[in-house]
């Protein structure tokens, strides 16, 4: 999955601020695309949350959604390699179900290429 893939995905949704691909086995950010400049600290925080969700004793598998007054964060494991997690940061007015479905299609496309 390239930065261009993430950028074109993000451009499809006005309330999608950031899309990032994280490697939770190494705890690193592989690539990302964002509407505005993102500090490394914010990317690292998102990566840490992905690692906490998918690499701790939590029984999380597949998809996790963290929602609050500032919007929602989606975390989706890649079907091809579950250690890779696509993260998306959405604004509070985002259409979460539609973006979740699109994120699933993005991950599925990646798994067959």
């Amino acid at each position: 999955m390239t930065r261009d893939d993430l950028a074109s995905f993000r451009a499809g949704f006005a309330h999608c601020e950031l899309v990032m691909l994280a490697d939770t086995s190494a705890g690193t950010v592989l690539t990302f695309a964002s509407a505005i400049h993102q500090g490394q600290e914010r990317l690292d925080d998102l990566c840490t949350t992905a690692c906490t969700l998918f690499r701790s004793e939590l029984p999380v598998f597949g998809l996790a959604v963290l929602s609050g007054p500032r919007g929602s964060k989606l975390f989706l494991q890649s079907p091809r390699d579950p250690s890779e997690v696509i993260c998306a940061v959405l604004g509070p007015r985002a259409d979460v179900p539609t973006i979740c479905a699109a994120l699933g299609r993005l991950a599925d496309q990646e798994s067959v290429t």
Partner: protein
Amino acid sequence: MTDHPSIATILARAAALGTDSQTLNAPTAEEAQGFVLDALAACIAPRDLTILDGGQPLLRLEAAAGQLSRLVSLPDTAPAEARALAGHPLMFTDLETVARTLARLLPGDQQLQCRSAPPAQPPDPAQPGIAVDALYRQLGLAPPDAVIPDRWAYLLDAAEEMLIAVVEPGKAPRQICPDRPMTGALERQIRTLLDPPTPAINTLDKNEILFFTLASDPDLAIGLAQEGAHPRAMVIEAGAMAEVAAFWASLAHVPLACAR
């Protein structure tokens, strides 16, 4: 970054929305009026706000410090007494006129957008204008924070048809959907999640909820939240997870109609 929650929230929302101006499909008057009042309330520094309907300018307002300070320009459809106020500093005695004007110009079934710019001249501090809170009350609206004292209970009510079970510390699990009994293994799993310290709870900020699907039962999703010191969980159909999460996120900013 300041610790003031409202400032932090406003900054985060601005960042989350990127550089695009906000657009809202407002099918009801409450949503249309709430959209404009939300935009006014978010103005800390003086701002000149242009409200567009379907891409066309509808009205221009000037706001600062959570106060509506001036009606800059209004369409011909606005009440004559409001058009007479345009361009002049507003006073609290103009509250009814301004509320009536907003009600007339924002009847719902609109596609609204808000553009923000610095005002041509700073507002006169001796003329503070009309508090947005007073406009909320005059229009029969209230921010949900004021009308939803217990968001968790509100969510449970709203998501009743999707709920399978609710687990709260110190209480027996409540089975909501008798057709989908919660297994003992799932119940034990949730109780483990609710016993602090848990990594899941540590990932939650105030008023956040975490939904996730399970490897053991991919058709189910667990929602974890923490109200005060007490973590709690709900079990829902996995297919409803995104909708319920979006509903929870929307609770913070969509004004709700309430009794005057």
